[in-house]
């Protein structure tokens, strides 16, 4: 494993991550404060939804990050399997609880938005159901790491589960176009440009950037912890051998 790329070297990663984290943290806090201010005080009411539209500013970024975290987890899992890189496997492991949290947030804030607007907390349409499946995929992935004691085997099994679950990602994204759903189609990431007025789009994008920053900060914290835990395991094994 002497041919690791420099950043794939856990020790160099630790140094880099500790240097970058404070700056990312400060930027995230600033973006979050700006985003919340814009969402609650500056953004206008929607012509149909009134003030309820403000739920969008937490709901939509949560849903974006739920998908993004899964993409990170899947790419890291693939890298881990292909190059047998421990750091890649640990990246996937560190991303999972963050993704699960964002998925939970998307579901909870979606229910709070659906009740006043649609008239229901929950429906079993293709979009909502596929996001619920994403949540269970995250939980299954986390449980799999816990279930297998042998670290190398746990990493491999969890990575395979993460890659199998990738089929769910395009299903979530395109469910609203492929099938009749109660959930409306995409407003921002669409071929003919966003269908949100800029006064509502700007707060949404700032909150999106803040959530992305939060993901990077928490991922680096969790990944540092995983790297240290790995050093502890190695040390203990060396000591038990005498």
């Amino acid at each position, binding site marked *: 494993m002497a041919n690791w790329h420099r950043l794939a070297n856990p*020790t160099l990663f630790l140094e880099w991550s500790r240097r970058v984290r404070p700056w990312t943290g400060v930027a995230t806090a600033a973006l979050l404060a700006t985003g919340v201010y814009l969402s609650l005080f500056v953004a206008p009411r929607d012509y149909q939804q*009134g003030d309820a539209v*403000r739920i969008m500013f937490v709901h939509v970024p949560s849903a974006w990050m739920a998908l993004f975290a899964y993409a990170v987890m899947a790419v890291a899992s693939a890298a881990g399997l292909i190059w047998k890189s421990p750091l890649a496997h640990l990246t996937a492991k560190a991303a999972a609880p963050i993704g699960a949290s964002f998925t939970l947030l998307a579901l909870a*804030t979606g229910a709070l938005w659906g009740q006043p607007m649609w008239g229901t907390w929950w429906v079993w349409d293709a979009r909502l159901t596929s996001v619920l499946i994403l949540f269970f995929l995250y939980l299954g992935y986390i449980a799999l790491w816990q279930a297998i004691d042998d670290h190398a085997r746990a990493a491999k099994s969890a990575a395979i589960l993460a890659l199998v679950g990738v089929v769910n990602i395009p299903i979530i994204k395109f469910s609203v176009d492929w099938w009749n759903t109660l959930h409306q189609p995409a407003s921002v990431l669409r071929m003919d440009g966003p269908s949100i007025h800029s006064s509502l789009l700007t707060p949404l994008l700032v909150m999106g950037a803040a959530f992305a920053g*939060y993901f990077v900060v928490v991922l680096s*914290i969790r990944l540092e912890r995983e790297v240290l835990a790995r050093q502890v*395991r190695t*040390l203990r094994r060396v000591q038990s051998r005498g």
Partner: protein
Amino acid sequence: MESVSEFLEMGGYAPFVWPAFAIAAAVLTLLLAWSLRDLRRERNLLDSLPGRRSETRPAEAGDDP
């Protein structure tokens, strides 16, 4: 700028808007706190082990993933 009570009412959607923001704040804060706590524990554990390797030393072959 409208009055404070009007702002808090959120045009009648207060029971939905405020819980949505509160849940987001709670989940993100808890996850951050939980991650920091785990990191601190792992650091303390590593420091307490005898024969701890220097962190500047590169990882060696045979390290488990």
